[in-house]
């Protein structure tokens, strides 16, 4: 038997899940798709006293268009998101990034909420929802809270989720059709965790100038590095080009504070952060369809 002993319950619905979390939260772990939790159980890196299986709850598996944005239920499989026409049309950044999340074998089981709640600093989805300025909906017996992604991620494998709370959905705001986006990462093999990656989204006005943007990096610190304010200083109101995207990227690369580990030394990660941030910003700019002009392409 690989995992250390625990007691197990299946939650039939959200109310039962948050009831169990209210009762056992301090000593419990939530099991959804299990693609991040079970490896940690197998190595006994986590030894929860209770495991609450939410995998059979109906109604937490949805992708819906709401006010031009996307609401995605926490139990939605990564593979479902990967194959969703709605996600591809409304949120191409997520559609592009999800292909980098593990392998098909893990995306078949792994959930959107599981990846976000696990909060691995090298995982793609936390950076994507940070760049998109998404909100996370948390539920407990005390009620609901909605947090911005940048408040939610608090460190390596650490989030603002309280022990009695369940992540139930991620809510991605509307980015108008024609907004450009790009996800760039460097990993040793397809499907491996990224050494460093960058997710960028950019909306341009009819005159070509940048109206709004978001950018976040992975593998460059203990949580998604939200570089939106740095890139905003360089690019808002500007016509994006190689020079100003590069200037923004250099400041981003100088600002990140990655650690060295077995995969890459810190200075190499800083170099990658500069290169990939620049590439993601420029690519997002080029993909943005400028209203009233023919050139450019969405995706």
């Amino acid at each position, binding site marked *: *038997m*690989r*995992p*250390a*002993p*625990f*007691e*197990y*319950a*299946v939650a039939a619905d959200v109310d039962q899940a948050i009831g169990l979390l209210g009762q*056992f939260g301090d000593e419990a772990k939530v*099991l959804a798709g*299990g*693609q991040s939790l*079970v*490896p940690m*159980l*197998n*190595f006994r890196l986590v030894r929860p006293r*209770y*495991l609450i*299986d939410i*995998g059979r709850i109906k109604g937490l598996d949805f992708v819906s268009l709401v006010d031009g944005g996307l609401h995605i239920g926490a139990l939605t499989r990564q*593979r479902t998101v990967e194959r969703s026409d709605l996600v591809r049309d409304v949120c191409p950044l997520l559609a592009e990034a999800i292909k980098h999340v*593990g*392998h*098909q*074998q*893990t995306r*078949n*089981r792994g959930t959107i909420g599981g990846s976000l709640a696990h909060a691995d600093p090298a995982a793609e989805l936390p950076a994507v929802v940070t760049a998109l300025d998404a909100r996370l909906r948390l539920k407990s017996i005390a009620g609901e809270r909605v947090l911005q992604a940048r408040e939610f991620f608090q460190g390596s494998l650490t989030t603002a989720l309280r022990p009695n709370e369940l992540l139930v959905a991620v809510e991605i705001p509307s980015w108008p059709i024609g907004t450009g986006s790009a996800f760039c990462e460097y990993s040793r*093999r*397809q*499907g491996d965790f990224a050494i460093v990656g960058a997710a960028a989204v950019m909306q341009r006005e009819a005159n070509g100038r940048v109206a709004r943007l978001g950018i976040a990096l992975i593998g460059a610190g203990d949580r998604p590095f939200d570089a939106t304010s740095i890139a905003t200083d360089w690019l808002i109101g500007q016509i994006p080009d190689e020079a100003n995207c590069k200037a923004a990227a250099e400041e981003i690369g100088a600002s990140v504070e990655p650690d060295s580990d077995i995969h890459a030394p810190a200075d190499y990660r800083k170099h990658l952060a500069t290169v990939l941030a620049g590439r993601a910003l420029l690519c997002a700019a080029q993909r943005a369809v400028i209203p009233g002009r023919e050139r450019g392409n969405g995706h």
Partner: protein
Amino acid sequence: MDIEREVTLTVNGTRYTRVVSVRKLLCEFLRDDLDLTGTHVGCEHGVCGSCTILVEGHTARSCLMMAVQADGTEITTIEGLAKDGRLHPIQEAFWEEHGLQCGFCTSGLLLTVHEFLSDRRDPSEQNIREALAGNICRCTGYQNIVKAVAKADRLWER
């Protein structure tokens, strides 16, 4: 809260009901409780792909599922691929192209390839290599594995 639960699942067309410890992995359940030892366990944390099986027709790492999570599901393991004493065309192709050396990774590879080829035709070599990225072969026999997948695409009438 339980430490044991009854599970009922269908594996390779046979229905089984067993009482299992809630902390038993699905791969252990298949191997130890059902004697289906064709599912191989390598890394035990979802990286090597050896334990890949089909759950409801889709690949899954059986070391990353608890047996209790499989309650009510339909599973195919490597033992379910050959029918009536005849190898599946994917197995045939691996045999003909020498797509295995020690064979440890092979059962997981075959099921990965089964899902990969089931909904596409004529994949490029690049597509094949990407599809295999989640299965590690430590004999490093990838060259012939890639050839075997291309051959399986031609052999398998689907």
